[in-house]
């Protein structure tokens, strides 16, 4: 589904600056907003009937995810997941989940606009994130598909290890702060003072 052209993503105004970092970093770091992804906050019993509605086993190991087609399901808590899909998929995905619940108590809340997403990649991306995130992101402890709710640049984020790098889900109100922080943190690689 095409998005109405009147929509503004939280980091539309930062796109140029993020692109300049990517250019100036000479391949060390790349960063860009991935806007308008579908995000559903899902609360249910992982043993209940709705758990299978997305055609994927809901991950029950802390800080892992599962993928089915174009949908990622990120573990946020023992009974909470973030369902992430392409733009415009909220109704489709909610429509799969709600009927499957039957009489079970299931909460599906569309939070697509609650957070926007940044994709960070490049050989120095872990060094960059380490400047503001206390989580060990080394592949030995945080591999592809792993996710974690944590703080980056003092802002609450969900970090998701997703090729080719890291997807960072950040609340819309914190997004500009995080973008500013990332641009400044990249100075070591870009040489562009902020």
């Amino acid at each position, binding site marked *: 589904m095409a998005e109405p052209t009147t929509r503004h993503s939280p980091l539309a105004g930062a796109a140029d600056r993020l692109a300049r970092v990517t250019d100036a970093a000479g391949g060390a770091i790349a960063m860009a907003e991935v806007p308008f992804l579908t995000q559903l906050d899902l609360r249910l019993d992982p043993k209940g009937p709705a758990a299978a509605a997305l055609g994927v086993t809901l991950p029950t190991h802390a800080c892992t995810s599962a993928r089915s087609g174009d949908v990622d399901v990120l573990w946020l808590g023992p009974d909470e997941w973030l369902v992430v899909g392409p733009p415009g998929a909220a109704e489709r995905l909610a429509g799969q989940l709600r009927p499957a619940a039957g009489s079970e108590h299931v909460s599906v809340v569309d939070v697509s606009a609650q957070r926007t997403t940044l994709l960070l990649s490049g050989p120095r991306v872990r060094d960059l994130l380490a400047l503001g995130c*206390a989580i060990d992101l080394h592949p030995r402890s945080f591999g592809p598909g792993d996710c974690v709710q944590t703080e980056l640049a003092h802002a609450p984020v969900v970090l998701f290890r997703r090729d080719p790098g890291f997807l960072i889900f950040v609340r819309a109100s914190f997004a500009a702060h995080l973008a500013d922080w990332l641009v400044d943190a990249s100075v070591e690689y870009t040489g562009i003072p902020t």
Partner: protein
Amino acid sequence: MTGQEFRTDRGGLVDRSRPLRFRFDGRDYTGYEGDTLASALLANGVHRTGASIRLGRPRGIFSAGVEEPNALVQIEEPFPEPMLPATTVELYDGLVARGLGGRGRLADRPDPARYDAIHAHCDVLVVGAGPAGLAAASAAASAGGRVIVIDDQPRPGGSLLGAGSPVPELPPNPELRLLTRTTAFGYYDDNYVVAVERRTNHLGANAPAHLSRERIWRIRAREVVLATGAHERSLAFADNDRPGVMLAGAARTYVNRYGVRPGRRAVVMTTNDSAYAAALDLHAAGVEIAAVADLRPGGSPAWAQRCAERGIDVLDGHAVARVIGEDRVSAVTLRRKDGGPARDLDADLLLVSGGWNPVAALYSQAGGRLTYDEELGAFRPDGSCRQAVTVVGTHTPGIAVWTLPGGDPATAFVDLQRDVTVADLERATGTGMRSVEHVKRYTTAGTAHDQGKTSGTLTSGVVAGLIGAEIGELGTTTFRPPYAPVSFAALAGRDRGLRYDPVRVTALHAWHEAHGAPFENVGQWKRPWYYPGDGEDMVTAVLRECRAAREGVAMMDASTLGKIEVGGPDAAVLLDRLYTNMMSTLKVGAVRYGVMCRPDGMVLDDGTVSRLAEDRFLVTTTTGNAAAVLDWMEEWLQTEWPELRVHCTSVTEQWATVAVVGPRSREVVAALSPGLDVSREGFGFMTWRDAVLAGIPGRVFRISFSGELAYELNVSWWDAAALWDAVLAAGAAHGITPYGTETMHVLRAEKGYPIIGQDTDGTVTPYDLGLGWAVSKKKPDFVGKRSFSRADTSRADRKQLVGLLPDDGRTLLPEGAHLVETPALPEPPVPTLGHVTSAYHSAALGRTFALALVRGGRDRIGERVFAPLGDDLVPVTITSSVLYDPEGARRDG
């Protein structure tokens, strides 16, 4: 410019092809790349670096590392930095410094350098890249671990550098990281070690601007290996502080590592074998050794033999009896420690070794205990610690000798930086002090920048002797972080200015900025405060905005309100328990104002509850309390009522909110949403509807925080800007006026609507606010209910929210101003009736007014009280808190 006459012809790790110019105490010198400021000064024959802080005695370079107690310098160029030991300052071209007697001077301008912090994780952290640390790191890396090695020097090697020995290479391994110029200064729980890396300090003015000058490393390690070596300690004897008195190991380092002779003719005073190596190395470099005095009867025959082969006199059982020279040692008198003839020896250098103390600061910070080792004559880690830490290294046997016989105890120093002498310790123990902690606080021994690295054990030893205790029982003082001084700039890192705390903005922030709004901080949010027109000040702008809302139509960005979706079969039960009023009776499509209290009955937050569906509600919170209210709900659900089938989801940023306010707001909303019945009958107060607004799907709420006819429009955050523009366009014909938080505050205060956190302070009940109507009498229970039956919450003289009208109609009472009963102040203490919580200019009332919490306030309505402001007592009349439209005639337009 003077030559480096004390530089050896060859040798050392300095690069003689790269001379560096520097200035010290106003004189120009040269040194080489690889020098420290201390080694470069010594190469130029400069020992004395300043005078001591308390006694003004000349002092010189005493050590060759971080333990330096004496040679503090103030860096002047390229950027001022106070109190750095010259032994830790790497020389760079253009360095300008001067010696300090204690305190330094902070820069009078902002530091242009970058500072930052980084997190790191490893299996094994090795602190110290000397021979033991390098061996541990190699072993850990070859076992497949992620290894970090840190060392405070510019290159690995540790004691090998000072001994002039080859340094083993670390194996190439992508998981082995060596951090040089890095000092571990704090060891916290769960093997969390904090270090500071000096990345570009050594480059002086040539440091690249895009690299942080210093970086704080926050390292979490599965295991820590401490290979931090040992610090040599001195002995207490008269005039042991003269420039030219130096630790023997330091002198050896200057010769071997820096190619510097620290003097021409040296006397060596030792209690152990280690100083012999210094004597031999100095001798080989051309320093004449007048004698080695070994306090031990019999000394060390093997070392004495080696000395004899080189023609060096060794005097066993001898001690220093006297040091001659003030600005610089000129001669030393040796005498058998049991008396006998004195020997006067000309010397410009007196090398001292009183033994070696294992560097145990980090081990101690980690929670490890130290034990006194008779064989070492020193305290060492006892090997058992609650953290996963191992200490490695070799040791030098020593003897427990602290003072040399004879001489004036008032010039026998234990702590050179703090000017603490044996006489001071005698005075402390003479008053009855028996603990080294007490002695430390009384004398200040060990409290300087060096934290007693060379003096701590010596102090304990002298005190033990004075009170006749065993040093092992007396112990040491406590080691606390930081191990070495760390600049505040490094600790602050990038968390300064706007990055000190995240700034949260709404989807409309760019519009607010473009239209000149100053911003008000509300929690982490920036909210537009008001929109000044041409030539308008704040008062004028706010009066204009208020008039628009009361007389025409106005709009504001209310997106920062906290929003929580509460869903589940028991959602209504949860809300009934958390709000003071009944929510379960709310019909789908209806909205209710609600108050939440803590168990003590005091107001926690307020907001609206909208029923979206039978089992789904949308709750709003105050801007600053959004996270706290969600936590509050989760806490009750998870700890007290886990049986409730309810889920709470934050949707604060899912929805953007635009309030359209004023008598003309109905026309504006009708124009935006032609399909929506906006009639008084069709869309009543405190209801909500799904609607399409200018083509954007959203929700419309008939909620008013101003008392006027008003609508709150919710659309997705992505659509906020389009909606805002559409509202502006739809309202243009009515002169729609954007307004900020100040106008919002005025409008709500005119109606007596409290702001939780501004008009309340955690001691205010709903009844105090006049919100008794919102406290259910029917519900069996809710959080806070029981407290309303306490005598204290029903006192008639509780502070209650009332309005205040200054009699002159013009005075704007300061928020926080107190109120008193009488027109003249009685003798203190003056009893206060209460205080002003909010005060504004009102366009609608044509005057100033205020809200206040006043003792028994509702019974005082109509009374005149007084606000002491400076020397005046301003008369004000107490009124109802509802000052505008008390009958509520305006809310339906």
